[in-house]
C-alpha cells in the first residue's frame, strides 16, 4: 500500500509557524519570570468583617443567596482530578443538589473555575486568558494537589507550582485526587465565602 510522502512545508507557513512558536515562548517565559510570589488569595471580605464595617440589607442578602445557590462551574478539567469532578457531577455524588449541575463550556457564561489537574507551563497562558474572559463576580477553586501547589510535580521543569501563581484562588481542595465528597465540601466552603463576600457592596464601592 503506497503512503503519500509528507509534503514539504512551504516557507511562508514555516516562518508563520515559527513566529507563533516564538510568541508562545515569550508569553510562557514572561509568566515564569513574574516571580515566585504567588497571587495573594482574595480575603478582603475577611478584613471587612473583622472591622465590622458591613451591614447587610435584605436586598444584599437575597443577592448573596442567589449568587451562591447557583454557581455555574466552567469545564476546566486538565488531568486525573477531572474524573473526580465528573464523578461529583454524576448521580451518586450529585452536584445538582447545590445548583451547580450546569457546567458551562464557555468562560463568559461561568462563575466558577474549578482547576482540576496539573497545570503545565505550556497551558499557563491559556488558563490566564480563560480566567480573564470570565465576567465578575468570579471565583476559582484549586482542586487536587497539583493545582494547589504543584503536588508531586512541584519541582518539575514543566509544571506550574500551584495555580495561585497565575490566578487568585478562593478555595484549595487538597487530595490526590480529592474524593467527590471532598470537592463538595470545598464547594460548600466556597458558598459560605460567597455568602460573606457581599459582592454587591463591593461592586458599588469599586
Amino acid at each position, binding site marked *: *500500500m503506497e*503512503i503519500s*510522502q*509528507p*509534503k*514539504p*512545508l512551504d516557507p511562508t507557513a*514555516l516562518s508563520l*509557524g*515559527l513566529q507563533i*512558536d*516564538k510568541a*508562545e*515562548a515569550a508569553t*510562557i*517565559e514572561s509568566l515564569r519570570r513574574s516571580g515566585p510570589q504567588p497571587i495573594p488569595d482574595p480575603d478582603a471580605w475577611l478584613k471587612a468583617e473583622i472591622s465590622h464595617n458591613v451591614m447587610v440589607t435584605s436586598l444584599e442578602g437575597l443577592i448573596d443567596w442567589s449568587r451562591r445557590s447557583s454557581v455555574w462551574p466552567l469545564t476546566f478539567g486538565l488531568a486525573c482530578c477531572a474524573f473526580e469532578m465528573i464523578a461529583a457531577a454524576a448521580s451518586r455524588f450529585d452536584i445538582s443538589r447545590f445548583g451547580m449541575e450546569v457546567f458551562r463550556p464557555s468562560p463568559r457564561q461561568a462563575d466558577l473555575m474549578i482547576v482540576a489537574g496539573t497545570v503545565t*507551563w*505550556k497551558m499557563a497562558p491559556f488558563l490566564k486568558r480563560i480566567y480573564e474572559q470570565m465576567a465578575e463576580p468570579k471565583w476559582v477553586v484549586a482542586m487536587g494537589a497539583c493545582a494547589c501547589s504543584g503536588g508531586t510535580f512541584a519541582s518539575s*521543569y*514543566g509544571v506550574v507550582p500551584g495555580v495561585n501563581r497565575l490566578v487568585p484562588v478562593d478555595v484549595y481542595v487538597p487530595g490526590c485526587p480529592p474524593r467527590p465528597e471532598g470537592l463538595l465540601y470545598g464547594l460548600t466552603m466556597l458558598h459560605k465565602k460567597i455568602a460573606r463576600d457581599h459582592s454587591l457592596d463591593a461592586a458599588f464601592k469599586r
Partner: protein
Amino acid sequence: MTKKLSGQTLAKQIQERFPNSVAASDETSVVVNAPALLDVARYLKETPELAFDYLTCVTGLDYFDYLEVAYNLTSLQHNHSLLLKARCHDTENPSVPSLVSLWRGADLQEREIYDLLGISFPGHPNLKRIVLWEGFPGNPLRKAFL
C-alpha cells in the same frame, strides 16, 4: 497473540542483505547502526514475508555512553512484531535518520524525542519542539540535565 520474532534470526537475515549494518542482537531486539537505519527499515517494511506495516511506538533512550532510538514494529498481515533499535554513540549531536517517509506515525513521536532528548532526525518534514516551548534550555530527559 502477536508473535515476537527472535532478534537473532532476523539479525542474520538483515546482515546478509546489508552487510555491516547490525551492531548487536539478542532474543528480543535487533540493534542497527544509525546510518543504515533507513535501508533496513525499508527492507523490513517491503519484504512480503516480514511486511512490518505498523509502527507501534518510537522511544528514545539515554544510556550514559550512547543514545538509542527504539522502534516497535508490528505486522498486521502476519501478526508478528519486532523491536528495532538504532544506536548513536555521539552524545554531542546525535542524529538518526527519520522514518516519516515510511511510517507517518513516526512524525509526532520523533518530534517528542527531539524535544526531550535532543536527538535530531534529518529528513523529518517539521522538526521542532512539541511538548516544551521554543527556546527552552536543554533536553529534560537526558541524564545530564539537572
